[in-house]
């Protein structure tokens, strides 16, 4: 513990006291920016959830007045009955908010910002001002998107994938301003993402503490590094597509409208060329953080650290050559379908390696089921289901049947909710002490976990059954089809489960907000972890360390024999046998 005392500075030692505005609003401190992202994206997570509840009402009880719908204007719900055009907006905006403004910023905006400098021993990001700009542009993008509900005709009605020509032709979609706002918001968001990603990449390459070699980096940092590379390459493609789409609507171009010589499939290629790497942007950081939490909870080194790193890299690379698997039924050349099927099936291998390595990490561990560990283990269990259901749609002939059915909805939610969101329900309490100096309540956290886990499965697992029965996605009223009428009780069951799932999140919200002021004071290293961030006071001060810490080993040396009586061995702790690293990769002081 002596080395900890040596590197942790007195509060704000080399930073003059700052005004409230400078410190919390226009902050260039990576930790404050991470926290800003946290609050904003939790708000958008709530928005996405509220949209989902209305959508579920319409699906479970089509044509029945929704309680509380009186608050909605007539253009959305008449006599309390959700209108089909509003339903389609709900579908589209639920996806848009969850993907672009909740999960992505929660994983990348919050944790890339908060964790990268702390975990590699840097004082801050390489470009703190660009980092601040990245937050403010993301917020602007989110607000623009949010505004689209309140303009004439409301928000987009063509799904979060916004397929052209429906999205390109206001006369066919019935949306003008909302559609333009979507395009502009995406362009702004892409800007934010590129600024953020460049920052993360530069910081990781240039600002690692002495001794923090590539293979001593925690898997969370590895995952965020690969994610940042995906982000910097993928988002501009979507931005370009969004600009073309905006042109189609406003200045009379016809990139996507075949009636005037455009190509309908062009949008899909551009969208999914972005979209599939995006899926990995939404899962890789979760995988990385889950690895950290599982190693900690198991009190064991991660099983197969190097193959975990290579699996992340492999997934990141393969993510670029599988986009066509979203388009098997689109009319794309069937031979291309064959090649995309192969690349898609291949991606199952690194994913399987990761799952087995997490299991290997738990094997013969000494498992501490704190709330982060519970959620991390649930991530493994649920992501496995999401990964395995992906095999069905990777197999092209089976996809012919289940494509665009509720089966796909089940799959994406097992990956993004069962995967990403469970990882976040672990990550938030795990790093909460380092953010706010207090602990979230463990008991409430456990109740929240179990309720979420149960209702989550009751909500999403039956969607597989609906999909197997042939129920298409995005139907306002499935009972219009005779063959879907018998499935309606299951739809109602899902709706009720979804309401309970939503209600369970109240516990999380209360726990999160209550603990800000009333939570137990956090010690330096509440989880007895090895990461560099735990050498800092809780909350960590601006500028992090006075002097960059020196790293002597990898991040997962739990239960190492040389640790003595403890079952963990922090990365920065010098044992008599450790030698000083040859050269420092980071300057001694960042600024």
């Amino acid at each position, binding site marked *: 513990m002596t080395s900890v005392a040596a590197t942790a500075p007195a509060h704000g030692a080399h930073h003059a006291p700052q005004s409230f505005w400078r410190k919390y609003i226009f902050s260039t401190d990576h930790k404050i920016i991470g926290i800003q992202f946290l609050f904003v994206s939790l708000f958008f997570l709530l928005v996405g959830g509220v949209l989902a509840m209305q959508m579920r009402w319409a699906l479970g009880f089509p044509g029945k007045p929704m309680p509380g719908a009186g608050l909605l204007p007539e253009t959305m719900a008449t006599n309390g009955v959700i209108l089909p*055009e509003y339903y389609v907006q709900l579908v589209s905006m639920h996806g848009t908010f969850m993907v672009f403004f909740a999960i992505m910023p929660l994983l990348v905006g919050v944790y890339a910002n908060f964790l990268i400098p702390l975990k590699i021993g840097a004082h801050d990001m390489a470009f703190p001002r660009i980092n601040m700009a990245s937050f403010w542009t993301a917020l602007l993008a989110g607000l623009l998107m949010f505004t689209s509900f309140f303009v004439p005709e409301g928000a987009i009605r063509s799904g979060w994938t916004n397929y052209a020509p429906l999205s390109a032709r206001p006369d066919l979609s019935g949306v003008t301003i909302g559609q333009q706002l979507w395009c502009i918001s995406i362009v702004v968001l892409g800007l934010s993402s590129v600024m953020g990603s460049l920052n993360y990449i530069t910081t990781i390459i240039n600002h690692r503490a002495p001794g923090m070699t590539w293979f001593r980096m925690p898997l969370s940092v590895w995952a965020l590094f690969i994610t940042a590379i995906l982000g910097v390459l993928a988002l501009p493609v979507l931005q370009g597509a969004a600009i073309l789409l905006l042109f189609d609507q406003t200045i009379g171009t016809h990139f996507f409208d075949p009636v005037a010589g455009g190509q309908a499939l062009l949008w899909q290629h551009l969208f999914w060329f972005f979209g599939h790497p995006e899926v990995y942007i939404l899962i890789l950081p979760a995988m990385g953080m889950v690895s950290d939490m599982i190693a900690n909870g198991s009190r064991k080194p991660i099983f197969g650290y190097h193959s975990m790193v290579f699996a992340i890299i492999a997934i990141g690379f393969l993510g670029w050559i599988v986009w066509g698997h979203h388009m098997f039924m689109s009319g794309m050349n069937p031979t291309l379908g064959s090649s995309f099927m192969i690349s898609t099936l291949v991606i199952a291998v690194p994913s399987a390696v990761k799952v087995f390595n997490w299991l290997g990490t738990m094997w013969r561990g000494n498992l501490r089921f704190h709330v982060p560990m519970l959620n991390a283990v649930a991530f493994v269990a649920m992501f496995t289901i999401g990964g395995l259901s992906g095999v069905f749609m990777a197999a092209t002939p089976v996809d012919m049947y289940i494509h665009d059915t509720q089966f796909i909805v089940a799959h994406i939610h097992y990956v993004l909710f069962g995967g990403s969101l469970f990882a976040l329900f672990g990550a938030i309490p795990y790093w909460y002490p380092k953010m706010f100096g207090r602990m979230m309540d463990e008991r409430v956290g456990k109740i929240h976990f179990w309720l979420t886990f149960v209702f989550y499965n009751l909500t999403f697992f039956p969607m597989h059954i609906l999909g197997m029965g042939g129920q298409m996605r995005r139907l306002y009223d499935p009972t219009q089809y005779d063959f879907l009428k018998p499935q309606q009780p299951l739809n109602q069951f899902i709706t009720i489960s979804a309401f309970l799932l939503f209600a369970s999140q109240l516990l999380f919200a209360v726990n999160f907000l209550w603990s800000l002021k009333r939570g137990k004071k956090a010690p330096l290293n509440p989880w007895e972890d090895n990461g560099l961030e735990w050498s800092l006071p809780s909350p960590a001060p601006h500028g992090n360390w006075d002097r960059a810490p020196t790293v002597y080993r990898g991040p997962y040396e739990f239960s190492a024999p040389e640790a003595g009586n403890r079952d963990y061995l922090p990365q920065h702790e010098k044992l008599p046998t450790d030698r000083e690293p040859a050269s420092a990769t980071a300057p001694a002081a960042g600024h």
Partner: protein
Amino acid sequence: MRKLGSVAAVGLGVVMLGLGAAARRPATQGGATVTGKVKFTGTKPVMPKIDMSEEPKCKAKYTTAPPTEETVVVNQNGTLANVFVYVKSGLPASAKYPTPAPPVEIDQDGCHYRPHVLGVMVGQTLAIKNSDGILHNIKAKGLKNRPFNISQPTTMTSNRTFTAPEVMVPLECNVHGWMQAWLGVLPHPFYGVSGGDGSFSIKGLPPGTYTIEAWHEKYGTQTATVTVAGTETKTADFTFAAK
């Protein structure tokens, strides 16, 4: 709050209208009348039957004869229905006419628009009713008016208004491809639609010389010039020939 606001807005609107009408009231009451008949010559075209078996609720409403398309409706007496007749020009440019408070109603009944052709004044409410209780969407493809596309999944009424004169705004339902209606939006109340006997009438015209246009969705337009004075009634007949 929203409701209160709209009540206030309506109230204010009524007051404004009242003031406007009092300020310069044109002779809409007791003015001249133009009536006439729209005749039809040539072979009566056969309208295709519509198979509504996918919509049992609509199909059940046709017990005597199967439903047909309504592009050309020739009456028993050989006249042409669904012709929109209106004053195209001749009114003083500065004249303003009060917007009637009662809405104009169009109903979707038996998977058909009732009526098929109708007029509405700028600012007047068009009440779009769905009596069928199945999904209809109403797509208004105006060029001068902001297009809209709304849906009614069940029995309900939606209100819309129009901001600019336009003859005609097509209305269509995309769920039932045969459903079409035509809406004439005018800044004045001087219009009529030929009915089941082929006749129309335009009432309350101030003295003057007017160009009257008759519009039909298939046979195009015809015009006539009429001069009226006082409270007299003049006749203007139109004849459309089969094409």
